[in-house]
């Protein structure tokens, strides 16, 4: 049998394993390049042109341009790499993490101050916690979902 991937049944979570790493190699290496101030400036001046210097997939480029971190992660991005994009934009890690839930910045901050997201119902896919697929997006984004 192939190797076990026991982590596929956790809701709202992508484990960065070798497969993800292969998929996201150039996306993540692009992110690393933003650790140099010069590169951050060049990226900000013309995002598309800077992205086109990298052999990323078009989808990865679109995900970066959209600043959709969940989309970036699905295409192989790792959060520690993607964080360099947020840093370039002047965002905090809290703003970045919150952006993946659908909550507003305030909603997410309030959740954290109240003790964070509970693990109850969020341990296994198929339970009923707020991180489960059927409850996405969360917060204000979720309330406006049907509108």
């Amino acid at each position, binding site marked *: 049998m192939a190797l076990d991937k*026991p*982590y596929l049944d*956790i*809701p*709202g*979570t*992508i*484990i*960065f*394993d*070798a497969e993800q*790493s292969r998929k996201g190699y150039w996306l*993540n*290496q692009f*992110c*690393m390049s*933003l*650790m*140099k*101030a010069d590169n*951050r400036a060049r990226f900000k001046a013309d995002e598309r042109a800077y992205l086109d210097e990298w052999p990323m997939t078009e989808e990865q480029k679109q995900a970066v341009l959209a600043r959709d*971190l*969940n989309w970036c*992660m699905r295409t192989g991005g*790792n*959060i*520690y790499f993607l*964080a*360099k994009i*947020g*840093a*370039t934009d002047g965002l*905090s*890690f*809290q703003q*970045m*993490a*919150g952006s*993946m*839930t*659908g909550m507003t910045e305030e909603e*997410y901050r309030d*959740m*954290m*101050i109240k*003790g*964070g*997201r*509970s*693990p109850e119902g*969020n*341990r*296994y896919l198929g339970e009923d916690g707020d*991180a*489960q*697929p059927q*409850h*996405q*997006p*969360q917060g204000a984004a979720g309330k406006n979902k049907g509108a």
Partner: protein
Amino acid sequence: MAKISASVYTSHVPAIGAAIDLKKTGEAYWQPLFAGYEYSKEWMKENTPDVIFLVYNDHATAFSLDMIPTFAIGTAAEFIPADEGYGPRPVPKVIGHPELASHIAQSVIQDDFDLTIVNKMEVDHGLTVPLSLMFGEPEAWPCKVIPFAVNVVQYPVPSGRRCFQLGQAIRKAVACFDDDIKVQIWGTGGMSHQLQGARAGLLNREWDNAFLDRLIADPAGLSEVPHIEYVREAGSEGIELVMWLIARGAMSDIQGGPAPTVKHRFYHIPASNTAVGHLILENN
């Protein structure tokens, strides 16, 4: 002879570094957190070691996807704080201890730990935030630091058991270093946090506190907990806690000595996305 005098455990949340650097430590949000480290700073003044063996993880800073070492030991003379995208933290450079680092590398490689030896490396918040928490804002760090980076970014990361065994091998290595110096070993990262996806913001106060209890009283049992439990219970980035087992494995009681003294224990929620845990154990 060198001796491990104590182990220190602490989260290394980047926002804590930013709060210190931007002079926000007095703000209502941050005050309870920094209050929890007041004792620690006093204790550090009384108990400054010669060298800190600082276990942390690199967060896609020194190590890109080009090379991912499971365990990397810094044997250089100095290590510069990295620009993680916001500009480098305004903290002193880190002065290494090449002789002790090389000695430990040699000893643990001969004990079948397959280290990567690193002679050139920038260090990120994983290493500098714990120093800031424990020392405040000095002109220069008051002791030398050996950076020891563990891969917890790309799965599979080393098991808790492997980390715990490594700590024991490090203790043995330190004990046969000829110079008469005091060494602390720090385990950093964690506690519960998840920085990604719809589950971002997960915290688990109960699990974290049970982890602290067991780290003190049942580290061998704790070291058998599989990765999947960390991820499920403490969030995808909670896996950083395996690093604490390296520091714990280096205490004398693991080899039949007396239990360490719990000098300080602190827990606080939240710092940005993360639950903050902190322990000081003096070796006996």
